[in-house]
């Protein structure tokens, strides 16, 4: 008789050996649990940045790490006051109707030691706006505009436009500066910049570490390093915060469980229903008014957003140039909504035709419930509404022109964030007849928008405020819901006050150790 164990046991023995080998040789496990370096800021994001390419920094997932941490622009917008502040440029002026001249800061170097000059500034703008790289910032801020660039001396760069552009410095503030050695044929995942931090190591899929830039021109940031990780689940990000595994957790919802560590802040986003007023029954003004009377904005904010938001009467929040403080909320009046729908029906408008209510999964906390409530409210008014929840790619087909053929009447739940601080960036997109995210408009209203875009200062503010006041009477493409608020998870170890731009650019240099910080626990 053989003394060898039976085959099943041989298989199991091999299996157990493999378990041991796997467990001892785990390539994905790399350090011990517990403890932290008090000089390192630990941050958890909702997703890994796809790239840190500076010309992609208008993408939230890239900009939140890159902007003003690794690379910097010539000027920076104060997200609270809207004022444009000097950064790598100390001043700028309009030197001709189609030219702006920027004077650069002295003594700035890139993290690789190379000095920053006007050649780098002109190169960076040219690379981001005029190149074939298809940079996100190009499409977001400049459209198909081509800029002319001159560098009269090492500290001066002149930017020319085809038409007078009163807000060119604001647009330029979206362009991050990179050295002239940066590739113009390929995007770079790990850029060199002038910012307070530089990339130390990026373990793709696991974590990204930034270290203090020793050549930084400004005051050294408080933390020597910043370590980013990413988790897609909000509840896990909140648990990491409460379990003292991170100091900052972004993108939390009220239900994620951060408790007292969650800090609410206004995040510049506004939610609204965008109505395709070119298809019956939505092409009838009374039906669009009925939709507005049906939506209980105050109830949605209170019950579904748990108070994290303000019911909205316009597309932009306070703090953005063009905000109209005098606009009142559209009243919630279900009876009036039913009456308007009945009137439209009596006049032969096919109010029974099915309307698609299109939402995007995970667009904001409570989006599914919001869509369900709105569907119910519109049904109560007498409209035939069907919910369609889609992923981002599918929903964008209904958010961006041209819409799919034979889409029929649909209402898209949108969320718009104005990062730039000027109403032009919202109105051109959402209210012009040919706006990429506009469903319809009128020629007269387009002229009003165009005229506002040419103004500056107080006149510009008034003109855009008037546009928001007029739109519900002249077009009525929207039923605004709320100016949203986000939650940033923050440990007691760190002092930081989130601002409206925090979701798009989170300045590490603004974070300091709290006075009550604990000592090293490692």
């Amino acid at each position, binding site marked *: 008789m053989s003394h060898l164990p039976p085959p099943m*046991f041989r298989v199991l023995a091999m299996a157990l050996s493999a378990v041991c080998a796997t467990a001892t040789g785990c390539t994905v*496990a790399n350090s011990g*649990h517990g403890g932290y370096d008090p000089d390192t800021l630990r941050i958890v994001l909702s997703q890994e940045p796809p790239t840190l390419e500076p010309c992609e920094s208008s993408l939230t997932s890239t900009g939140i790490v890159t902007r003003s941490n690794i690379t910097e622009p010539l000027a920076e917008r104060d997200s609270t006051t809207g004022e444009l502040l000097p950064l790598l440029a100390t001043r700028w002026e309009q030197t001709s109707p189609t030219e702006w001249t920027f004077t650069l800061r002295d003594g700035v170097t890139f993290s690789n030691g190379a000095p920053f000059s006007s050649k780098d500034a002109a190169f960076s703008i040219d690379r981001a706006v005029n190149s074939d790289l298809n940079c996100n910032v190009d499409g977001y801020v400049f459209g198909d505009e081509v800029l002319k660039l001159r560098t009269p001396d090492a500290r001066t760069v002149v930017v020319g436009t085809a038409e007078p552009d009163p807000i060119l410095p604001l647009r330029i503030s979206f362009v991050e500066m990179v050295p002239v050695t940066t590739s113009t044929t390929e995007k770079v995942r790990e850029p060199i910049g002038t910012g307070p931090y530089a990339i130390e190591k990026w373990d*793709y*899929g696991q974590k990204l570490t930034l270290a203090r830039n020793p050549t930084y021109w400004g005051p050294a940031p408080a933390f020597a390093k910043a370590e980013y990780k990413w988790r897609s689940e909000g509840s896990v990000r909140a648990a990491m915060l409460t*379990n003292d595994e991170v100091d900052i957790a972004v993108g939390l919802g009220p239900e994620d469980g951060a408790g007292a560590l969650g800090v609410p802040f206004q995040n510049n986003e506004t939610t609204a229903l965008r109505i395709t007023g070119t298809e019956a029954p939505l092409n009838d003004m009374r039906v669009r008014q009925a939709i507005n009377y049906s939506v209980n904005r105050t109830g949605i904010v209170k019950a579904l957003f748990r108070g994290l938001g303000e019911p909205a009467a316009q597309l932009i929040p306070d703090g953005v140039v063009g905000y109209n403080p005098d606009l009142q909320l559209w009243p919630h009046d279900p009876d009036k909504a039913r009456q308007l729908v009945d009137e439209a029906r009596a006049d032969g408008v096919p109010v029974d035709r099915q309307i698609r209510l299109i939402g995007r999964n995970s667009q904001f906390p409570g989006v599914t419930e919001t869509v369900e409530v709105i569907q119910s409210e519109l049904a109560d008014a007498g409209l035939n509404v069907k919910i369609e929840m889609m992923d981002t*790619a599918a929903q964008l087909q209904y958010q961006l022109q041209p819409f799919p053929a034979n889409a029929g009447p649909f209402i898209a739940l949108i969320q718009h964030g104005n990062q730039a601080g000027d109403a032009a960036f919202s109105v051109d997109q959402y209210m012009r007849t040919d706006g990429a995210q506009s469903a319809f408009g009128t020629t007269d209203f387009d002229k009003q928008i165009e005229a506002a875009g040419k103004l500056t200062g107080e006149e510009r503010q008034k003109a855009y405020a008037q546009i928001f006041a007029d739109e519900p009477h002249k077009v009525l493409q929207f039923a605004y819901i709320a100016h949203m608020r986000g939650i940033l998870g923050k440990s007691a170890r760190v002092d930081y006050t989130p601002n409206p731009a925090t979701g798009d650019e989170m300045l590490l240099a603004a974070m300091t150790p709290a006075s009550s910080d604990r000592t090293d626990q490692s």
Partner: protein
Amino acid sequence: MFSFVRRRMYTSALPLIIVLLGVFLLARLTGDPTNLYLPESATPDQRAEFAAANGFNDPLITQLIDYFKGIVHLDFGTSLRTGESAADMALRAFPATLQLAITTMLLAIVGAVVIGCWAAYRPNSLADRFSSLLSMTAASIPDFWFAITGVWLFAVLLGWLPTSGTDGGMLSWILPIATLMIRPLGVLTQVVRGAMVSALSAPYVRLARSKGAGDVRVVTHHALRNAAAPALTVAGDLAVGLINGAVVVEAIFGWPGIGKLMIDAILQRDFAVLQAAVLLTAVSIFLLNIFIDACYALLDARVREPARV
């Protein structure tokens, strides 16, 4: 044995090609990814330029031929999202999933054999009922719920384990493995128990007992060997599911594996990465199936040899 493996390789080639073809076509049915990669304010010209540069305007058949040509040259394309080689991204993510899946499956097999044998040895006893309840519950619990509850209980409330990630050494493996293991453990325990109940009542077991074999020897040398074949078949299917279905665990625990990579690629319409990840997964499942068949043949001579008339 070699000819057996060769036969299996031939029969698996066609399904592999069908899978690749299916993923290619289904991915493109989900629409053009241009809108995802350009800002919402991009002009129509910029959109057209992007689509043309990435071949999205080409006829489907042209894209398909380019794809298969690329496979022949081991060129799987570049990620739209990161600009990296799609093959590099898939190969970097795959070992993490494999480690997780292998460890989970082996622990599940060991656990199922122990619990299943124990329950089968005393059928209808309290121990048997308890193990049935345990395995049915384990097979029914949603992994998402189990994972989040595990994080809340063991990380937040008790502070014993890290919430997620791979920085916590061995401790960081516990929750992902427990989450991934619970379903296979429940299913396998039931299979082992059922097979062992049948085996323990078979004539050869009664013969072994009559010849004086002890309980341990009867279970391990006689019954378990014959009960192993159905358990191995089910374990193979479950292992395939683990490699393919670690998406939830990888997403929740921040495990940098191929399941997470695939789901991100789907959501971002990153076709090259999706195709590279599916190809790698399909090939590994194909190899796993051969391995399982080889184990099966090792256990049962009838499988190795072609039937003789």
